[in-house]
């Protein structure tokens, strides 16, 4: 839907629904084997994943490794383009056909699918072959809804901190020493800023990835975006987080104003932003650009505690799956838990202890071990239906305040109202 051209009719929504239903699960699926969707053979399991980016080959490596490691079972790995992923899943669910046996699902989606009884409670799979103890407890929590386990964790991907080592050196800072708290962050940012050269300490984005950055600072302020059945956008922790981000632009002047979509990425790549925060998926782009960068856990920019917003990848099993296949599925999960090192090569950090506690993991690249360092204090989005409709207004408020077009309290009060209305 993203590459819509101008001739796109308003009916496209309904058209696509029909077309995609007609094609069912097959739409956009890159097939590895001959058949798509659930297979009759109980030793054959189909896996769907949205890894159409540079992460795809690493998952394929794991699946190929599994298929070669034993003769009993076979996993048929199918990549669905990321932008089409949940659409494809939803239409397969809707058409009640061609569902995969296993699919990769983001942690923030699990609640919706679990509530609708589309994915299976995996509690009965836990036993000798795999157990929850093999994964980081936060990953298990992220894959659970009301203490019932719905997903087997693959990774946790929190926000990360990146810095430009060359710029640190030029500013007289230790290029191997990233800031760890708000004071250091501001101090370093000021040292790195040279407005005459159009060079800044930390360019504050006004759109994505604020979806990761803003909640991170709120958590670090000891706050929540949602608690006690209500949105908390006007709480002190949220207001303070937004005021802090705004102060980087006007009070400390370590960021230019009016940063547009991806403007902060452009400036980091151009060597005109000393520090940057983004997800682990950016690694390939930094590597390709030849940037001399460092990566570390996000400094504590909030006033109270360590914390970082994260999402995760998990394996889930549709409710509709044949019980006979559960042996094969459990066997595959168990293998991935022990052999997910290849996944770390993509810059991600697998959530299985066998991987992230191993020596090989520490050396696989500089990033993945920094990701895992944050596992102990990651925070996920709340389990609320239609949470997306509540974060929409919040991100609009963040956008307007950071652009200097609205007062912080006024914008957040408006967002609070809109979000509460949308969640009703």
């Amino acid at each position, binding site marked *: *839907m*993203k*590459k*819509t*051209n*101008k*001739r*796109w*009719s*308003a*009916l*496209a*929504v*309904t*058209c696509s*629904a*029909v*077309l995609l239903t007609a094609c069912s699960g097959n739409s956009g699926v890159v097939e590895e084997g001959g058949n798509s969707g659930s297979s009759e053979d109980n030793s054959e399991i189909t896996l769907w994943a949205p890894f159409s980016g540079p992460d795809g080959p690493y998952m394929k490596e794991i699946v190929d490794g599994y298929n070669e490691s034993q003769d009993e079972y076979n996993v048929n790995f199918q990549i669905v383009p990321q932008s089409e992923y*949940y*659409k494809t899943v*939803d*239409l397969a*669910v*809707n058409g009640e056909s061609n569902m995969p046996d296993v699919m990769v699902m983001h942690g923030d989606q699990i609640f*919706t*699918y679990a509530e*609708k*009884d*589309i994915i299976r409670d995996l509690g009965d799979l836990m036993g000798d072959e795999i157990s929850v103890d093999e994964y980081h407890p936060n990953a298990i929590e992220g894959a659970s809804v009301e203490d019932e386990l719905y997903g087997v964790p693959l990774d946790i991907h929190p926000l990360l901190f990146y810095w430009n080592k060359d710029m640190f050196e030029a500013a007289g800072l230790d290029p191997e020493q990233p800031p760890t708290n708000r004071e250091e962050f501001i101090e370093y940012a000021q040292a790195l800023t040279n407005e005459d050269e*159009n060079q800044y300490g930390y*360019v504050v984005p*006004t*759109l*994505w990835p604020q979806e990761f950055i803003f909640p991170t600072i709120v958590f670090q302020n000891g706050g929540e975006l949602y608690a006690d059945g209500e949105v908390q956008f006007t709480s002190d922790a949220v207001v303070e987080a937004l005021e802090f981000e705004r102060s980087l632009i006007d009070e400390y002047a370590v960021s*230019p*104003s*009016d*940063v*547009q*979509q*991806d*403007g902060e990425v*452009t*400036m980091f790549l*151009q060597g*005109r932003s000393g520090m940057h925060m983004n997800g682990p998926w950016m690694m390939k782009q930094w590597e390709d650009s030849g940037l001399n960068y460092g990566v570390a856990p996000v400094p504590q920019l909030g006033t109270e505690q360590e914390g970082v917003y994260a999402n995760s990848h998990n394996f889930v099993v549709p409710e509709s799956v044949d019980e006979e296949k559960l042996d094969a599925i459990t066997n595959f999960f168990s293998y991935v838990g022990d052999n997910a090192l290849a996944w770390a090569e993509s810059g991600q950090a697998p959530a299985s202890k066998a991987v992230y506690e191993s020596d090989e993991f520490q050396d696989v690249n500089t990033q993945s071990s920094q990701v895992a360092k944050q596992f102990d204090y990651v925070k996920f989005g709340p389990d609320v239906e*239609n949470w*997306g*409709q509540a974060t*929409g207004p919040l991100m*609009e408020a963040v*956008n*307007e305040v950071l*652009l200097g*077009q*609205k007062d912080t309290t006024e914008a957040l009060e408006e967002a609070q109202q*809109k979000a509460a*209305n*949308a969640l*009703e």
Partner: protein
Amino acid sequence: MKEAKLPASKAKRERLSKFTSFLFVLPYLLLFLAFLFIPLVYGIYISLHDYNLLSSVQPFIGFENYATIFNPDSAMNSLFFDGLGNTLKFVIFSVPLLVSIGLGLALLLNSLPGKLRTFFRTIYFIPYAISVSVVSIIFLWILDTNSGLLNMYLMDLGFDAIPWLTKQPFAWISLVGATIWWTLGFNMIIFINALNEVSEELYEAGAIDGASAWQKFIHITLPTIRPIMLFVIITSTIASFNVFGQPYLMTRGGPGDSTEVLLMGIVNLAFEERELGVASAMALLMSLIMIVISVIQFKIANRKQGGES
């Protein structure tokens, strides 16, 4: 006998000719049914149900989805009408420019010598063949407030940097500008063809009567190309109504939600929130509004024509 036979063969020929015509229409008819008519009917069906993609039951709820949209207290109401307002703004800003600049460029190219004309016609038409994602990325780079090409030149000339995509009215100016650069070629080509259809004799007669270039344009060119003008206005309006890719990729609906056009809201509702029922109702209402606007444009144009002749 001869006389009786002639009409028979004529009727046969007519039937054959009708059949051949039908064969020519058939491919379009099939595509129309498959991609427009059936989805439209299905869309109406969906809009009458509480159609969440993931729910196992989609109960029939009559016109409740429509009632929700028109209920001023619901979140759907602001989503629809704020989005519609932004879409209408885009239509009002872009259509007059798309039509007038398209015509201006056609006039300009038509007065160029043959080879140059072909050259420039191609140049102006090429952007139309590019996808919206590419257009948006090009403009994102050109317009970047802090590291874009345009602001770099402006600052070299001693001006302040302009927040092209993060402040109004610049965000609209940028979106309309990008759209004009992207789609202008189409209108231009249509106008060039229309201008070639205007009879030279009329201009000669006008010249003999001592008409100025402007008078020739107003009294000869414009009346002759009126049907084409109407076509261009209506297609430009419909295209602008369907704006999605440019704001989705360039401003993300910002600053705030000021460029969040209706289709962005509908697509989000349908495929992120999975509420196909309300989304379909919105899409149908949007089509209805477009149809009404097109009919009004048609009526106005026809009335003018009737009044003059």
